[in-house]
């Protein structure tokens, strides 16, 4: 897992080789795969146990310390929603920009998006306390015929996340159909029956491609503003309030850049070991990782600017509460979280200016871990640290983090990892048909298209 061999930008395999190589990822998994799956299931069980205890004992088990009534669970919710942004960025936005490097990586990032949003969606439910009445968030009236408050950003969030989950899942399934058909035509027995069912009668006939290609384009066009809106809406959960450290107009772009940054970080964390476990080294090359690293650098630099701007605005506003909040972020009781965020996100990402670092998988993997850590800390700082020093100094309190917080956090990684690993074993993690689209069919008379 050191330096990657330079390979040409476009795939050099034939169509048959692409099918063969991608299908090989669905054959009997290696020991490393089973170990990873076992680890994920074990982590999920820790989370499940913690959740059962929360149901039984109540939210008192978690480290809620007034005035910090949004803490690790909401931090982790925003963290996972952010992770979900890289998938749609790569699959939809880069599709519209006709970026050729997205082809090999978009399927796995899209799956990551769906599973990350599935993970995130658990957190508001865990956090609300009386989990069995979570459906009160949905727009239906209660017995007094009262409707939800549509002026509340929390309701916007319900709509944004449900829409994002539905559209990302749809996009993933639609993209999978031709590939599932390719698998169907290569396997036999009960697997053929299952893949036949999921291929929805796909044959690759011109009458199907004609509507498919157009439909996929429109789905990408619809998903593009959606991906930018979702984290903006999440940011308004905070920015619409008047808590110092939250009430900022830069929150939407700041959150979107952070979400993409964290998403790409997670893509790197997942893809670097995955290419080895699934033997995809010749498909996921230097070219792809270099581009992912450049995207990390770009979004990391935007974050650097946003952090600087937040401090500047706090100082320039002349508002004592705002100034105190930012002073305490750096030098207060939670300084360790504040500095972890700045070092991991603003400074570590700047190492990616060096090509040698961008094309070395070991260094990229280490950086991706820093990105994940840094982005979790960023949300913890914004949420818990801002709440811990509200307008009333006598109420200031440093939040406690208990075993129930850690249990759910660990469980969320297990829940996410479990789905991702099962997906990688069941469906093609590299888009067969899009890779083939980049490889010209052979010509009888030679020459290119």
């Amino acid at each position: 897992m050191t330096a990657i061999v330079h390979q040409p930008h476009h795939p050099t395999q034939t169509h048959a080789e692409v099918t063969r190589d991608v299908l090989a990822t669905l054959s009997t998994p290696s020991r490393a795969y089973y170990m990873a799956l076992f680890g994920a299931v074990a982590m999920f069980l820790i989370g499940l146990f913690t959740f059962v205890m929360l149901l039984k004992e109540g939210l008192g088990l978690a480290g809620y310390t007034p005035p910090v009534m949004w803490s690790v669970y909401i931090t982790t919710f925003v963290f996972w929603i952010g992770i979900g942004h890289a998938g749609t960025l790569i699959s939809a936005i880069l599709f519209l920009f006709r970026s050729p490097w997205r082809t090999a990586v978009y399927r796995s990032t899209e799956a990551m998006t769906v599973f990350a949003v599935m993970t995130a969606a658990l957190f508001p439910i865990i956090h609300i306390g009386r989990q069995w009445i979570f459906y009160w968030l949905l727009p239906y009236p209660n017995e007094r015929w009262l409707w939800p408050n549509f002026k509340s950003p929390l309701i916007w969030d319900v709509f944004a996340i449900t829409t994002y989950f539905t559209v990302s899942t749809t996009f993933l399934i639609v993209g999978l159909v031709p590939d599932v058909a390719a698998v169907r035509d290569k396997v036999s027995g009960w697997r053929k029956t299952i893949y036949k069912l999921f291929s929805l009668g796909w044959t690759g006939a011109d009458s199907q491609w004609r509507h498919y290609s157009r439909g996929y384009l429109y789905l990408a066009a619809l998903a593009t503003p959606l991906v930018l809106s979702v984290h903006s809406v999440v940011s308004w959960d905070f920015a619409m309030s008047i808590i110092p450290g939250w009430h900022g107009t830069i929150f939407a772009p700041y959150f979107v850049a952070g979400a993409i940054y964290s998403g790409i970080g997670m893509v790197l964390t997942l893809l670097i070991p995955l290419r080895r476990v699934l033997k995809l080294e010749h498909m996921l090359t230097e070219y792809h990782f270099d581009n992912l690293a450049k995207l990390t650098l770009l979004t990391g630099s935007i974050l650097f600017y946003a952090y600087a701007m937040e401090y500047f605005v706090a100082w320039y506003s002349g508002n004592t509460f705002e100034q105190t909040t930012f002073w305490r972020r750096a030098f207060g009781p939670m300084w360790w979280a504040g500095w972890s965020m700045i070092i991991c996100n603003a400074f570590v990402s700047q190492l990616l200016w060096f090509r040698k670092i961008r094309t070395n998988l070991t260094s990229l993997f280490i950086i991706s871990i820093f990105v994940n850590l840094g982005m979790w800390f960023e949300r913890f700082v914004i949420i818990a640290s801002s709440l811990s020093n509200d307008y009333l100094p006598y109420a200031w309190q440093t939040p406690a983090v208990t075993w129930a917080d850690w249990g759910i956090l660990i469980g969320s990684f297990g829940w996410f990892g479990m789905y991702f690993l099962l997906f990688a074993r069941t469906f093609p993690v590299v888009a067969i048909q899009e890779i083939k689209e980049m490889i010209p069919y052979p010509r009888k008379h030679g020459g290119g298209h």
Partner: protein
Amino acid sequence: MAAKTVPGVLASFAHVDAAVEAISGLKARGFRDLTVYTASPNHEIEEVLDQPVSWVRLFTLIGGLTGVTAGFAMTIWMSNDWPLLVGGKPIAAIPPYVVLAFELTILYGSLCTVAGMIILSLVKSLKGRPFHPRFSDDLIGVFVPCSADQTPAVRELLTTAGSEEVTVHGA
């Protein structure tokens, strides 16, 4: 119950220019109802088939418009159904409702697009038309529905164009 086989000739091509030559030859002889199988979309084949742009866009438009209308209608009606002053805002405040209308535009637009893709793909029935598993791998398939008396000529045209294999169905 197995679908009734559509009589015709199925040819497989390893070379795209050979397939394009065969398709243009068939079209010149008046064969319009061709079925061309490829593992991925191909511009040369799209050009020679010269099909009109898919109507899936209409589904997207209708879905999007329904979404935006539903978004505003739901929020405005529900607010007025039990009028409560919240945060000093009007009972039905448009700016916050734009967020919900936007989300529903995307949601309905996407779901209608997928519905359109499925419905329009079903318009042309592929039942009874032969298919070979290698068409989703590395070969291009061309199926020409034709009567028994047309079969020799079609077969000859496909072979001359450079087909790897030609089979007659439902004869």
